[in-house]
């Protein structure tokens, strides 16, 4: 039947699209073989919305339009506002009417909306077909602190938010969700540019549904954009949140927000228990990097540098201590020169100092291969002053040497 051949080819083009855009070739290789049903099988074993959608698409693939329609119908009973599912349903029915010639065969359909839904279909298929091995660990998480029960990593190329649990300082995969990012993509630079920032952020607040407009859905979690690095680079804008979808919308296309990271309400509700205000890190990256052996060595070198910084400070060896700061260092208010001057002054007034570092966490910075964000609790005891504070440093590696480029209270 012509219509079946057509819908089959549509599906194939989606699958191939998924393979081509898949960020890591290892998994893409699996995705390109639409006959390999293992990944689909894996998804079908769970009953998530996305798995049901994939099941329906698989039925189309197998020329079982009747099963596909049943699946989509049952999906829509649970999620009546799932626009993509409505579109697939429309195509399935249109195929029966014998009048389908492309994905989203609606007459007079606005092209941009069809494109958006086609993107969502492609991305969601890709998510099901090229699921990363759950044993892999994101490279970004060099060290977790015991307070950070979970970490979020947003891979914008996969339109996916991954949740990792902190198990004795090591990340362990928990779950992942489909997400929407800024209309114009990533690497936010200025206010209103409709882009999602790339970087290391933290959950700053928890805004309950009752205080939000409907468009934010079941809740909102503001992120710490712009962070210290963003400010240093004069990036502007604010109000980058994790939030839900309007009540009449199950999910939004992969690129549709003004820069926020948007989840389906049911997904946001599942995510909520993992989030700790002021603590949970959210790393947003253009593409996922997986941890490897080399990372351990690099991390050890950095840990050594941090320990040396602490030691040099504690021993009041001010020259050596200041040697840990890069020439282009700045704090929130001081340049390197002013910082060095102040530190020399303070240190010269002490007969002894003890510096302790605890609850250390380290995240490598997306798109900045030689930069890491270091967070810790600092205990400072000296002959005339003692305090404890939360601190954040940005370290960069220049000429194979780790140095501090930013330091401030976290």
């Amino acid at each position, binding site marked *: 039947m012509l219509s079946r051949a057509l819908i089959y080819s549509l599906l194939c083009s989606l699958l191939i699209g998924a393979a081509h855009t898949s960020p890591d070739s290892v998994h893409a290789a699996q995705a390109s073989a639409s006959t390999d049903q293992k990944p689909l099988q894996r998804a079908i074993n769970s009953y998530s919305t996305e798995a049901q959608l994939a099941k329906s698409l698989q039925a189309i693939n197998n020329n079982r339009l009747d099963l596909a329609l049943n699946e989509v119908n049952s999906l829509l009973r649970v999620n009546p506002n799932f626009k993509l599912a409505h579109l697939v349903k429309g195509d399935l029915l249109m195929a029966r009417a014998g009048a389908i010639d492309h994905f*989203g065969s609606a007459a*007079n359909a606005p092209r941009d909306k069809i494109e958006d*839904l086609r993107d969502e279909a492609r991305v969601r298929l890709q998510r099901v077909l090229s699921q990363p091995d759950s044993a892999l660990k994101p490279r970004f998480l060099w060290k977790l602190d015991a307070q950070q029960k979970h970490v979020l990593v947003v891979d914008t190329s996969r339109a996916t938010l991954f949740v990792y649990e902190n198990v004795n300082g090591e990340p362990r995969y928990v779950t992942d969700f489909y997400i929407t990012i800024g209309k114009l993509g990533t690497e936010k630079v200025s206010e209103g540019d409709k882009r999602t920032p790339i970087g290391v952020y933290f959950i700053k607040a928890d805004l309950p549904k009752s205080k939000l407009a409907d468009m934010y859905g079941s809740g909102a979690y503001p992120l710490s954009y712009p962070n210290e690095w963003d400010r240093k680079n004069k990036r502007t804008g604010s109000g980058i949140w994790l939030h839900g979808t309007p009540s009449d919308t199950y999910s939004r296309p992969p690129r549709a927000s003004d820069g926020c990271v948007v989840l389906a309400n049911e997904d946001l509700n599942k995510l909520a228990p993992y989030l700790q205000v002021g603590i949970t890190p959210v790393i947003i990256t253009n593409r996922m990097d997986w941890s490897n052996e080399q990372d351990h060595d690099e991390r050890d070198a950095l840990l050594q540098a941090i320990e040396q910084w602490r030691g040099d400070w504690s021993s009041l060896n001010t020259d050596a201590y200041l040697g840990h700061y890069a020439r282009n260092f700045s704090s929130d208010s001081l340049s390197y020169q002013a910082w060095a001057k102040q530190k020399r002054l303070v240190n010269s007034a002490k007969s002894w100092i003890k510096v302790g570092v605890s609850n250390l966490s380290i995240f490598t910075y997306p798109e900045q291969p030689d930069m890491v964000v270091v967070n810790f609790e600092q205990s400072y005891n000296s002959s005339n002053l003692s305090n404890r504070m939360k601190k954040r440093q940005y370290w960069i590696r220049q000429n194979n040497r780790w140095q501090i480029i930013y330091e401030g209270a976290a």
Partner: protein
Amino acid sequence: MNMFNRSHHCLALIIGVWLSGASLAAYADDIQDANKLFKQGQHSQALDKVNEFLANNPKDAQARFLKGLIFTEQGKTAESIKVFSALTEDYPELPEPYNNLAVLYAGQGQYDKAKLALEMAIRTHPSYATAHENLGDIYAKMASQAYDRALQLDRSNTATKTKLAMIQDLFAGGARSKSAPAHSAETPVIAATNKPEPAKTEPVAPVANKPASVEKVPEPAAAPVADNSGEVLKTVNAWAAAWSAKNVNKYLSFYAADFKTPNGESRAAWKATRQERLSKPNFIRVGISNATVKFSDNDHATVEFSQSYHASHLKTSGNKTLQMVKTGDNWLIQEERAN
């Protein structure tokens, strides 16, 4: 006006050729009379005749079928659904009542029910062309609903609106490619004699098969076509004037006998709606601008224009397309579409 003459499918309304046997003359006369009255639009008289006949032959499929058609034409959808439903129960082997039931359900937007009914029609007669075509239309309508949900399209989008074919007579030989089913004992008469000659087709304007004609966009014709755009525009303006004057009769007179009602409703139902819409507001102002006329031939024109509508409680504007047909000296509206 008979809605079936307007519908796209062209099953001829066949009457008077049921029977030839003298012993069945009385039967023939009654049904024939009823059918004739029905065809002439004398629905209540036709109904009286049918009821009269049914009083003596309560199970008669033919008469009940005609009764269902009369109710449909009178806009009594609930009654006609009842009649056709009962027929499907008593004669589950007949596809026609299922088909008509489906058309009625579809008219109410109950596409799932319509689909089921058509599937039943096809189950008994797998190659029943009309039912297949109608089922295709039902799928297209359901698809259109799904697309609306997916894309939040404007509900007034009429692009995928199609009209379904109501079967006008039971046991029409031409419509089914399989032979008529065996009939139950109650109607042996019909079974024996129901081979009408499709050759005797209706003289009333039969429309081309299926909705293809709806989408027909007139191409600049190869043969030169007389430019009567002045005439057409004059008619369109007069139509707008009658509308603005709330002159219902005048307004309705601009519509052709085979006017395609926007939602496939019966002409009676459409007429009633228009009557109400024109009468209710205190005032109506309809403005027409940027009109263009294209001719597909000397007698068919497509007029596109911007229409502003301003009434007591509503002010809207939008683009409209009229399909006009020349009938005698007048141009009449065959189809009216808001874009």
